[in-house]
């Protein structure tokens, strides 16, 4: 089948919020999603950024048929996820952060088998798929373990397998790496990249982790106040808003703010100074060399801009 896997056309979602106490409460309508239109091609890997309460999760719920749009239309592989929820459910997979879809008391193996039956997969196909997921996510040793005894990282891998057992065409992920250690995060990322490249599964990744986005997403959407405020590649995004990095240096002794070309000191704390610079103007190596030439340098580190900062700057430039 051709055509976009996901199509949103002027989608809005309104919630009624009640404020105050008792019976005399004020009702106000909040637009959690305020006119989002977008198209996601098959095989895409899309990142979705935005502050808390920006409408990201609501958008995902609209795309999965959990919520009905107040206006506009949503199509998943050409189907209406609200009217054809059950058909659409077979085509989408989802992992929602900390909420597991696995059976808490059963071994992981049983949960995967059960899901295969819930999704009515033919036995041979489901066996092959589970074997494949077990291998890619390194779940072998975890299969006989009850889900409640798995660590967070192990369970996340289990949940990923659970979301993919039925070979969905599109996978929605909401904060899949939150709370995971570096090794687990890396593992999840590698798996997602492979699933997308080799299986052609479209992935929509909602996260606060900019590294996730940088490593994985060819396209980034930034959502704020229910609107898409950026839609483009990660490089576009960083060029526009996030290419300022910070060099933190520990000097031998406290000194006046360092004067160096291409950077400016934004903070001084005793012998420690923070220098902000743009990669386009000067490289980190040049900057370190310049500082070391004039000051005794004890330690240093480079801070990448965090996503909140990028997003903050982004809102600073959008017309609102």
């Amino acid at each position: 089948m051709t055509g976009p896997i996901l199509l949103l056309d002027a989608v809005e979602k309104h919630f009624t919020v009640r404020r105050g106490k008792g019976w005399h409460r004020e009702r106000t309508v909040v637009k959690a999603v305020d006119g989002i239109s977008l198209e996601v091609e098959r095989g895409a890997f899309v990142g979705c950024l935005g502050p808390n309460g920006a409408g990201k999760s609501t958008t995902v719920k609209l795309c999965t048929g959990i919520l009905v749009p107040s206006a506009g239309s949503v199509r998943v592989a050409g189907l209406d996820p609200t009217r054809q929820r059950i058909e659409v459910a077979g085509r989408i997979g989802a992992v929602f952060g900390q909420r597991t879809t696995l059976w808490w008391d059963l071994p992981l193996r049983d949960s995967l088998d059960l899901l295969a039956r819930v999704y009515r997969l033919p036995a041979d196909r489901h066996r092959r798929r589970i074997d494949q997921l077990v291998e890619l996510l390194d779940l072998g040793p975890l299969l006989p373990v009850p889900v409640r005894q798995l660590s967070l990282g192990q369970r996340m891998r289990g949940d990923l397998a659970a979301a993919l057992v039925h070979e969905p065409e599109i996978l929605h992920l909401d904060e899949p790496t939150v709370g995971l250690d570096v090794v687990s995060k890396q593992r999840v990322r590698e798996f997602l990249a492979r699933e997308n490249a080799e299986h052609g599964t479209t992935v929509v990744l909602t996260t606060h982790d900019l590294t996730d986005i940088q490593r994985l997403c060819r396209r980034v959407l930034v959502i704020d106040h229910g609107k898409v405020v950026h839609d483009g590649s990660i490089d576009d995004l960083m060029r526009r808003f996030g290419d300022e990095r910070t060099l933190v240096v520990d000097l031998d002794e406290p000194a006046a703010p360092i004067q160096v070309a291409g950077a400016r000191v934004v903070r001084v704390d005793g012998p420690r100074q923070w220098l902000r610079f743009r990669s386009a103007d000067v490289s980190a190596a040049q900057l370190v060399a310049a500082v070391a030439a004039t000051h005794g340098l004890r330690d240093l580190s480079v801070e990448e801009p965090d996503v909140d900062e990028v997003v903050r700057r982004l809102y600073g430039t959008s017309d609102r």
Partner: protein
Amino acid sequence: MAEALRLYLVLARAEYRSAAQHRASFALLALTSTLLVALDFVVIAFLLQRIPRLGGFSLAELGVLYGLASTAERLADLMVGDIEKVGVQVKAGTFDLVLLRPGPALVQVAAPSCRPQMLGRPLQALVILGISLSQAGVPWSWDRVALLPATVACGTLIMVAVWVAGAAFTFVAVDARESMNAFTYGGGVLAQYPLSIYASWFRHLFTFVLPVAFVSWFPALHLLGRPDPLGLPEWFRFAAPVAADASTTVAAVAWRAAVRRYRSTGS
């Protein structure tokens, strides 16, 4: 329908196997649930030793009412009782996961109720029904033989409808589980006694609004070959299918409205 039943059984089996992982609590639940219900009728029997007749009914006749009402209530509980937890799922946001799976939400929420370790409860009620029927001097005839299973089936459907309608209500008022139980378990208990002992507004409520009188009272009058002390038309005794049909229709509409509301408000 076959697909819904298949999904129900798959999910029920998962729940059973989950419960079986905790062997001690599994066994204890099976034992206590059986013991508790065994005491249930003993209370009524003791009561009858003091007051030999209640509303003009002997112990055996009351046993028929009790058996019909409890069998229906407990079978319904066994089939769908867990939907009372839907309010909790709505509150915790886990109902989202139900909507993500390919199957009717009602089936997914109800399936965990089917616990084999609770099978003793309807069985106990059936045993009491059997003993009471043999002691109550039923003037057996073909229509009475046919009425018996039909009554159990329709009664169970009526009680299922009460559960589903109550669960639909907890979507709106997520903490209303207790007030819902007043109708589910309360309705079941109420149907254990002769309708004639209640005040008239109460009788009307449980005949025409929440039709639990059709679970036991009206069919029992025919089984026992008794005139209606309240003088309602004879055909009421055979109207349980009508009541079951009407109440399941209303419950289905309420449930769909509740899910639709959830999907448009996100709670």
